[in-house]
C-alpha cells in the first residue's frame, strides 16, 4: 500500500534494535563504585608500571573536583558514578595464535553482528584488534605491520612494551583535566588501542578496531592513542555495536591523535551503540572526547557515522598548531525515537595558512533531537586561515528536532570563514515520485537518505562505506513495509 507521512512516523517508532542480544561470557568484574583503591586495583590487574598508576590517581583527583557539563542540548538522568563497575575483562584471557582458539560464543556474537572475525580476515588488508569488554582478545596481521615498524596493539600492552611513547604522548592532546569525562576516563580507562607509525611509513592497510559493550552495568572507558610520526600516513577505522541492555550504560572514551610534521591521519568511526527502545528506555550514554593535534603540514580527517546511543556528546576536534596544517570533519548523525545527539567539531587554527573543512549531515526521525555544535577558532597568529562549514539537516515526521549551534571566533583579520546550512524534510511528494517509478517506500527512504549523506559516505574507506550504508538503512527504515 502506498504510504503517508503519518504511517511513516508510526513505523519508525516501532523500529527495534536489531542487535539486541547478549553473549554470556564469563567476566572478571570489580565491585561497583569508584575510589582510589578501585583505581589502584584496575592498574594492578593490568600489571601497569607505577607511573601509570600515579597518572590515573592524579586524574581521579581532578575528576573529584569537576562537575558534569550541562551546556549540551541533551536531557538525561545523570549516571550514578558509584554504582558502576569500572573494570570487566573476559575471564579466559589467552593469547591467540589463530581464530580457532577464540571462544566460540564470542565468534558467534561477531557473526550475529555480520562482521565475524572470519569475514574480517577475508577482507584482505584489514588488521583487526577487537576490544570486547575492555580487553583485546584477538589481534591479527600484527606481523605484516611489525615488518614496517608499525606498532598496533592494545594500550595496556603499549604501556608495558613502549612506555616511552605512551608516557610522552598520553594526555598531551586531551589533558587529564580537560573535561569531566576525559578526567574520568584518564582515571579508570580499561583498555583501548595504540598505534604508532614510524617516520615516512605509509601504513599498507586500514587499521581497524571494533568496540563492544557486553557486561550488564559495566562502564566502557576506552583509551586510544594514535601517533603518526613525520611524513607517515595511517587510516584508522573504529566501529561499534552493543548488545541490548535495560539500564543505561556509560561510555566515556578518549581518543588522541598526533600527526607530526607532514603526517596524515584518517580516523573513521561507525558508531551503533544500543540507542534505547522505542519508548526511550535504556540505551548507551556516549560521552566521548576525541581530539587531534596537527604539526607542520600535517592533516587529520575525522569521518563519523553516528547512528546509535541514547545520548551522544561528541566533538572530534583538530588543533591546527603547525603552519599549513589541515583539519577535516565529515559527519552523519542519525537519531530516531528518543535519541539525543549533540555532536560536532572544533577547529582551532593556531598556525599560518591552516585550513579546515566541516561537513555535517544530521538526520532526525521519531521524537529525537539532533544538534550540531561546532567551533571555528582562528587565533591571532593564524595568518590566512580558511574554514568552510556546511551543516545540513534532514527531518522525518513532525515530532523531531534539528538544531545548529555554530560558534565562530576570529582573532585575525586575514581569516576567511564560510558557513552554510540547510534544513529539509523527506516529503510525501518525494516518496510518491519514487513509488511511481516502482520503488517502494522503504527503498525510497534509503535512497533519499543515502543521497543526502553521500558527501560524507564517500569519505569512508570502501569496506566501511558499505557497512555504514547498511546501518543508515537499519536505523531509519528497516521496519517499513
Amino acid at each position, binding site marked *: 500500500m502506498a504510504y503517508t507521512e503519518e504511517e511513516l512516523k508510526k513505523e519508525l517508532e516501532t523500529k527495534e534494535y536489531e542487535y539486541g542480544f547478549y553473549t554470556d561470557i564469563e567476566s572478571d568484574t570489580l565491585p561497583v563504585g569508584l575510589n582510589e583503591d578501585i583505581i589502584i586495583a584496575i592498574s594492578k590487574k593490568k600489571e601497569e608500571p607505577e607511573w601509570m598508576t600515579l597518572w590515573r590517581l592524579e586524574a581521579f583527583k581532578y575528576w573529584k573536583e569537576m562537575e558534569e557539563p550541562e551546556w549540551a542540548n541533551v536531557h538525561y538522568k545523570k549516571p550514578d558514578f558509584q554504582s558502576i563497575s569500572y573494570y570487566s575483562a573476559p575471564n579466559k584471557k589467552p593469547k591467540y595464535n589463530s581464530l580457532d582458539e577464540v571462544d566460540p560464543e564470542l565468534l558467534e556474537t561477531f557473526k550475529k553482528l555480520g562482521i565475524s572475525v572470519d569475514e574480517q580476515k577475508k577482507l584482505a588488508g584489514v588488521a583487526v584488534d577487537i576490544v570486547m569488554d575492555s580487553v583485546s582478545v584477538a589481534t591479527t596481521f600484527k606481523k605484516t605491520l611489525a615488518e614496517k615498524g608499525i606498532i598496533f596493539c592494545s594500550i595496556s600492552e603499549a604501556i608495558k612494551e613502549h612506555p616511552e611513547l605512551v608516557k610522552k604522548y598520553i594526555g598531551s592532546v586531551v589533558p587529564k583535566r580537560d573535561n569531566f569525562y576525559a578526567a574520568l576516563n584518564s582515571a579508570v580507562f580499561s583498555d583501548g588501542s595504540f598505534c604508532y607509525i614510524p617516520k615516512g611509513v605509509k601504513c599498507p592497510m586500514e587499521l581497524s578496531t571494533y568496540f563492544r559493550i557486553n557486561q550488564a552495568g559495566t562502564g566502557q572507558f576506552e583509551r586510544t592513542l594514535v601517533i603518526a610520526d613525520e611524513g607517515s600516513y595511517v587510516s584508522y577505522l573504529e566501529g561499534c555495536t552493543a548488545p541490548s541492555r535495560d539500564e543505561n550504560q556509560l561510555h566515556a572514551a578518549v581518543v588522541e591523535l598526533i600527526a607530526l610534521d607532514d603526517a596524515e591521519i584518517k580516523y573513521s568511526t561507525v558508531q551503533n551503540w544500543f540507542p534505547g527502545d522505542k519508548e526511550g528506555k535504556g540505551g548507551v550514554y556516549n560521552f566521548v572526547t576525541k581530539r587531534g593535534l596537527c604539526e607542520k603540514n600535517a592533516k587529520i580527517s575525522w569521518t563519523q557515522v553516528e547512528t546509535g546511543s541514547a545520548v551522544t556528546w561528541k566533538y572530534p576536534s583538530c588543533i591546527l598548531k603547525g603552519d599549513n596544517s589541515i583539519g577535516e570533519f565529515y559527519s552523519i548523525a542519525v537519531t530516531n525515537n528518543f535519541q539525543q545527539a549533540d555532536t560536532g567539531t572544533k577547529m582551532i587554527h593556531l598556525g599560518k595558512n591552516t585550513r579546515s573543512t566541516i561537513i555535517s549531515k544530521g538526520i532526525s526521525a521519531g521524537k529525537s533531537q539532533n544538534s550540531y555544535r561546532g567551533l571555528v577558532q582562528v587565533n591571532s597568529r593564524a595568518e590566512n586561515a580558511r574554514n568552510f562549514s556546511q551543516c545540513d539537516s534532514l527531518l522525518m515526521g513532525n515530532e523531531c528536532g534539528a538544531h545548529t549551534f555554530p560558534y565562530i571566533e576570529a582573532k585575525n583579520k586575514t581569516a576567511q570563514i564560510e558557513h552554510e546550512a540547510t534544513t529539509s524534510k523527506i516529503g510525501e511528494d518525494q516518496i*510518491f*515520485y519514487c513509488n*511511481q517509478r516502482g520503488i*517502494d517506500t522503504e*527503498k525510497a527512504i534509503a535512497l533519499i537518505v543515502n543521497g543526502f*549523506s553521500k558527501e560524507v559516505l564517500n569519505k569512508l574507506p570502501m569496506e566501511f562505506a558499505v557497512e555504514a550504508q547498511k546501518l543508515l538503512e537499519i536505523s531509519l527504515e528497516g521496519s517499513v513495509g
Partner: protein
Amino acid sequence: MLKITDLHAGIEDKEILKGINLEVNAGEVHAIMGPNGSGKSTLSAVIAGKEEFEVTKGSVELNGEDLDEVSPEERAHKGVFLSFQYPVEIPGVSVTNFIKTAINESRKARGLEEMPANKMLKLIREKSELLDIDRRFLSRSLNEGFSGGEKKRNEIFQMAMLEPKLAILDETDSGLDIDALRIVANGVNKLKSKDNAVIVITHYQRLLEYIVPDFVHVLHNGKIVKSGGKELALELEEKGYDWLKNEAVV
C-alpha cells in the same frame, strides 16, 4: 488496457472527479484537455495511485484488474508510468542511480535478477541518445537545479528506460521551448507501439501537433463533457473552452 468507470474521487471532503468514464486500448493515444481546475492532474494522480486522493465511487481497471487495492509501486510494476507535471528533486541521487534503482526494483517485483551493469549502461546510452541527452546530465542529482525543459526531458528519459504499458504525460509541454518540445514529442513517438498506450494531458493544442492523438476528451468540472477525434483539439484552440462549459450545463 485501461478502463475507468464512473470514477468519483476527491481530497478530504472535496469531490474533484465526478463520474469519469474512459477506455484506452493498446496502441491508442488519448488526449485529455480542459481548463485549469477541471481535474486533469487529479485524474492522472488517481490512476497512478496517489493515496492523498480518495476514490469514493467507481473503478479504475488495468487489463481487467481493479487497481483500488494496488499500491503506486505495484501499479508501476504493472506498467503504469506518470510523467509528472512538477518532478521532485532528490539531492545526492544521480539520474543514473535513480533509474537503475527503479528498473531493478521493477525487475525484482517480476522475479527477475538485477540487470547486469553493462546491459544497463548500453540501455542508458541508447535511450539518452534518443532524447538528445548529454552524458554529463546523467550524473547530476535528480532534478536538482534542472531547467523546466531538462526536468521534462528527464521524465521522458525515465519513461524510455522503463518501457511502460500505459504512459500518462501530465502537462509535459508546460515550460518547454519549441525545440525541447520537438525532442520530447519525437521521443514519445518513437516509444509508441501497438502494445502500449499514451494519455497526454495538456492545456494546449500545440503538443498535439507533434504527438497526434486518436481521441481527444475534454474534461470540465470533474467530468468528460466531450470526446472526439484529433480535430476536436483544433476546435478547442479556436473557440476556447467556454462554449463547452455552456454545453455541459445544458
